[in-house]
């Protein structure tokens, strides 16, 4: 889940984690859908950023991550279990980019 700065929040986004004040009181529940009103409430609370549902995009380009994956599995022969692990990681990485 990506951590989004308050100024980039948009209505329709959902909170991935409950929003708590410093004493742990929940101010907005996990899964709450953001509206204009809720976004300004978050702004007024002095929060910098919040966790939003959905995959977060890694900072590096997808091709770099996939190349690095190939290098880590470079010596792999025909081991079917290792091929399966590599395939699962490749799909996992691709899913992070939506």
């Amino acid at each position: 889940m990506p951590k989004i700065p308050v100024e980039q929040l948009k209505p329709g986004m959902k909170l991935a984690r409950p929003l708590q004040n410093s004493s742990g009181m929940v101010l907005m529940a996990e899964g709450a859908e953001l509206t204009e009103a809720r976004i300004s409430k978050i702004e007024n609370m002095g929060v910098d950023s919040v966790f939003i549902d959905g995959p977060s995009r890694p900072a590096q380009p997808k091709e770099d991550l996939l190349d690095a994956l190939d290098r880590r599995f470079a010596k792999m022969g025909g081991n079917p279990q290792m091929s399966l692990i590599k395939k699962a990681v490749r799909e996992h990485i691709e899913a992070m980019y939506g």
Partner: protein
Amino acid sequence: MGNMDPKALRSRVENISNIPTIPSVLKQLSTIIENPKISLNEISHFVSKDPALTTKILQMVNSALYGFPGRISSVNHAVMLLGLNVVKGLLLSVSVFEIMHKAMIGLREHSIGVAIASKVLAQRKGLKEPEEVFVAGLLHDVGKVILTLVYPEDYDKTVKEAEAAGISIFEAERNHFSETHAAVAGWLSEKWHFPKKLCDCIANHHRPQVSTLAPLETAIVHMADILVKARGLGFSGDNLVPEVNPKAWDTLGLAEADLREILKELEDSVEQTEEEFKS
């Protein structure tokens, strides 16, 4: 530099408290934990004298990983909820995290990743104590830190040898020290009086097929290590993903869809944890 005498190696490792370069908090903690009759109050007392250690341990137990976010206020309370062994393991790992980061950049991230993946796997397998498997994951590579502290030059050479020869750190260690980081961590976890299952798991995470006391837990940490290496989270000295042991693979019986779900959970938890550990 030929093979080292395994007995001499073991004795140096077990007496790490005598090595001047050992950070004092680890030295003191190690002395306390070595006492088999140590009580909860004595541990709490020791921790409460060290504000930095108190802050770190409370941060860790209050992280979202444990399901009590923001609710654990004291070390006593943490022991009640998580058990003495888990708290001991967490204390040791926070006290080596800093050295871990210096010993090998990325090893701390790798260890946290393996701990989380171990816990996710333990929960999927219905284990009653997923937190103990988490601790085994957290400490599985602590032997690398200990070897760096005890033999800084030799260990540096070993890491470089592994890279130049294209072999695993595990093999390079065996060539150089006759034993490996897994054995080293196993000796220490016995000395620290961790449950036998936990010691077995840590000592055999590279050869899960020989585990007799905790075959399932050992297969879990073995698999977690491979998944974290495959995903490339952190760095543990190996550039290549080691092969999964066939027996461990069968014990876990994971399909591709399971692997993807585990990776997803791992990714989400690591992301949250990084936020929490930064502060």
